[in-house]
């Protein structure tokens, strides 16, 4: 029996464990396995194999019996996930239904927690926008005196941005804007005539505002490294959330997971809900993780020298808070009591729309899985408004067609076959930085358990006055830019969406220089448990305005590089 236990323990021991297989976990797994570490990847959901497990990917529009609308039975049972723009008939199987993983929202502080529990996580569903942070973003907290100073700056991460961009495949244009550094770009998508016109008008009117084509994780011209992954050029289907049979956009499923598997060093264990990270009080170090098998509900342990926690921002917080030992009675690494605090997100509440009556002899042809982008222009170099930080914005123009739908009978039928061109419609949506605050937090609701016997997460996050001021400024500024470009019927709209609906939740396990005021050091290691690394959204000290995934990729690759160097130097 004793021998059996020893063998069993040995069989459950790896060089490294990665918790989660989404964007950051996929990168951690790829880097660890490429460097020769036997790596166990734990994924709480089911396996999703590239292509074969994309059940809707080649379905025609008429094959969806509700034409992408979801039945009331589903939307009424799942009000939270139903508020996600991407939750529809063709993609619903990649989203967590509300009752599959309950959580607690603080009274009057609704938070939409949107999750994807499967191999690949939300990398199948993301919006694929990938902008680098600039030095102004990393310098933000120190300059504006909120949160804590970032322990890294742009120069620390820039080579890692390059490293992950080359592998993932990022389309973009080298625009030379210091607030949004250029990257390793594949050829850019086109801006259309009205977007180019707006770009020119804005450049004439404002010296510091730019309209550029979005930077996105789409292969516009495959390089050998993409072909080696079995990925091909993006075919502009714009059905990304179904999973892409061409691997045209970056997902863990199409890219990092199969790459890691090919090394022979990865063991992937789906249906593995991580309960906690094991801190061995005798050895005074983290030795592994406890897992609840989602099918059998059996608790088991796995062991490794290095643990990467990539469970997605809030679940990473939950796991660490639930990792209790004599040494860490308040959660792993939580000597200062700030674990779970300083949660932030992106403010996506406002939009501006309008029409343009020019270029009526022109239209677009084909589809574009991307849009225009307005890099942050507020408070970049110094404080100039009554709110802190700023916002980036999406911008797009589209030549709409319509049909005369009046009447009944043969005339209606004829009209439905003849599309007419209207004016160009133009639209923009804000992506505002929010300020991490102690009062925006997550905590364990110890008396309420999830279906796996793990305490539910209580989320208490809300907008603040800074966010409200920023919404007003965005509406005013973008409306003014639209007016100056001669756009008509300009309308502003506050969509009132809840925090979390942006799906950019960040923080709770923030990086910092001082163990008294942060959880992670500049290498994403827990100050108090150096063989535990957090490289998903939980590590973020502040949010900037950029879509965050590219930064998680770069931080993951950088942290693995450091971990393996430290391991070889016998420091871990």
């Amino acid at each position, binding site marked *: 029996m004793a021998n059996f236990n020893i063998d069993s323990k040995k069989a459950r021991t790896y060089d490294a464990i990665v918790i989660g297989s989404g964007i950051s976990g996929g990168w951690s797994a790829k880097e660890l396995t490429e460097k020769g570490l036997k790596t166990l990847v734990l994924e709480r959901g089911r396996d999703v194999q590239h292509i074969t497990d994309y059940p809707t990917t080649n379905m*025609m529009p008429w094959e969806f019996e509700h034409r992408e609308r979801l039945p009331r039975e589903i939307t009424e049972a799942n009000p939270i996930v139903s508020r996600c723009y991407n939750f529809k008939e063709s993609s619903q199987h990649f989203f967590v239904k509300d009752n599959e993983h309950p959580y607690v929202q603080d009274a009057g502080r609704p938070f939409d927690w949107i999750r994807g529990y499967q191999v690949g996580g939300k990398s199948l569903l993301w919006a694929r926008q990938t902008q680098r942070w600039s030095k102004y973003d990393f310098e933000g907290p120190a300059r504006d005196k909120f949160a804590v100073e970032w322990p890294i700056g742009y120069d620390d991460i820039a080579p890692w941005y390059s490293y992950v961009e080359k592998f993932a495949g990022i389309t973009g244009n080298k625009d030379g804007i210091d607030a949004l550094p250029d990257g390793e770009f594949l050829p850019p998508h086109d801006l259309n005539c009205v977007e180019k016109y707006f770009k020119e008008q804005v450049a004439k009117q404002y010296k510091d505002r730019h309209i550029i084509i979005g930077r996105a994780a789409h292969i516009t011209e495959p390089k050998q490294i993409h072909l080696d992954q079995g990925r091909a050029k993006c075919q502009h289907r714009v059905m990304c959330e179904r999973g892409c049979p061409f691997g045209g956009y970056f997902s863990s499923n199409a890219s990092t997971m199969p790459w890691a598997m090919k090394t022979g060093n990865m063991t992937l264990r789906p249906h593995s809900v991580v309960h906690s990270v094991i801190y061995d009080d005798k050895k005074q170090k983290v030795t592994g993780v406890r897992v609840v098998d989602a099918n059998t509900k059996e608790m088991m342990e796995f062991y490794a020298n290095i643990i990467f926690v990539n469970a997605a921002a809030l679940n990473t917080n939950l796991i660490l808070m639930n990792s209790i030992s004599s040494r860490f009675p308040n959660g792993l690494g939580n000597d200062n009591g700030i674990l779970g605090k300083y949660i932030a997100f992106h403010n996506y509440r406002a939009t501006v729309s309008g029409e343009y009556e020019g270029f009526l002899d022109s239209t677009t042809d*084909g589809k574009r899985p991307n849009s225009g982008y307005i890099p942050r222009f507020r408070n970049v170099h110094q404080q100039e408004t009554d709110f802190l930080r700023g916002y980036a914005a999406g911008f797009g123009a589209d030549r709409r067609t319509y049909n005369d739908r009046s009447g009944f009978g043969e005339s209606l039928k004829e009209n*439905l076959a003849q599309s007419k061109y209207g004016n160009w419609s133009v639209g923009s949506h804000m992506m505002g930085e929010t300020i991490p605050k102690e009062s925006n937090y997550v905590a364990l609701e110890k008396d309420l358990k999830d279906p796996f016997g793990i305490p539910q997460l209580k989320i208490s996050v809300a907008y603040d006055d800074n966010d409200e001021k920023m919404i007003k400024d965005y509406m005013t500024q973008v409306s003014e830019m639209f007016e100056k470009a001669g756009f008509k019927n300009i309308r502003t709209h506050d969509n009132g969406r809840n925090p979390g609906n942006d799906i950019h939740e960040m923080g709770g396990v923030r990086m910092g220089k001082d163990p008294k005021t942060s959880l992670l050091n500049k290498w994403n290691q827990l100050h108090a448990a150096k063989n535990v690394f957090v490289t998903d959204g939980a590590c973020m000290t502040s949010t900037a305005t950029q879509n965050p995934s590219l930064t998680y990729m770069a931080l993951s690759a950088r942290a693995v590089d450091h971990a393996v160097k430290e391991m070889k130097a016998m420091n871990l």
Partner: protein
Amino acid sequence: MERRVALKNMAAAMGAMVVMPAWASGWNTKAVSAVGLLDAGKAETLALVVETIIPKTDTPGARELGVGGFVEKMVKDCYDAKAQAGLSAGLDAVEAISKKNFNKSYADLTKQQQLSLLEGIDKGSDADLKGFLGLVKNLTIQGYTSSEYVMTNITHYEMIPARYHGCVPVKK
């Protein structure tokens, strides 16, 4: 005369050799339609209404493309009880108006009479009935324009464009 009685009489007159359509026998037993929201008789009226909205010409009309079933399916699965009751009541009203104005079932009206009946509802003042027709019309247009036939043969849907050109001349 009740329509089912008329049909039975007609069948009797023709020596009971008429094969009753499936929906008609279903109607007799008050069976529900294949979709399951409406009874078979109302589902038949709905199929006739969607055909009036988008009729067969040299290309198939809404009925042939199964749009009646689509409308019923959408209302059953995606709309609330009020809209479902409104669909049912609206189809009753169509029959009632038909009887009142033409002394015939909607099925037995000429195409022109069917058209003018719907136009009358559209121009009328009964808000519930207009709401019913608006819903059925919108869903009919959706079901028709997103049907395989129309997307393949008329609007030429491209699953895989493989391109985006930002500025091309409008085709005259």
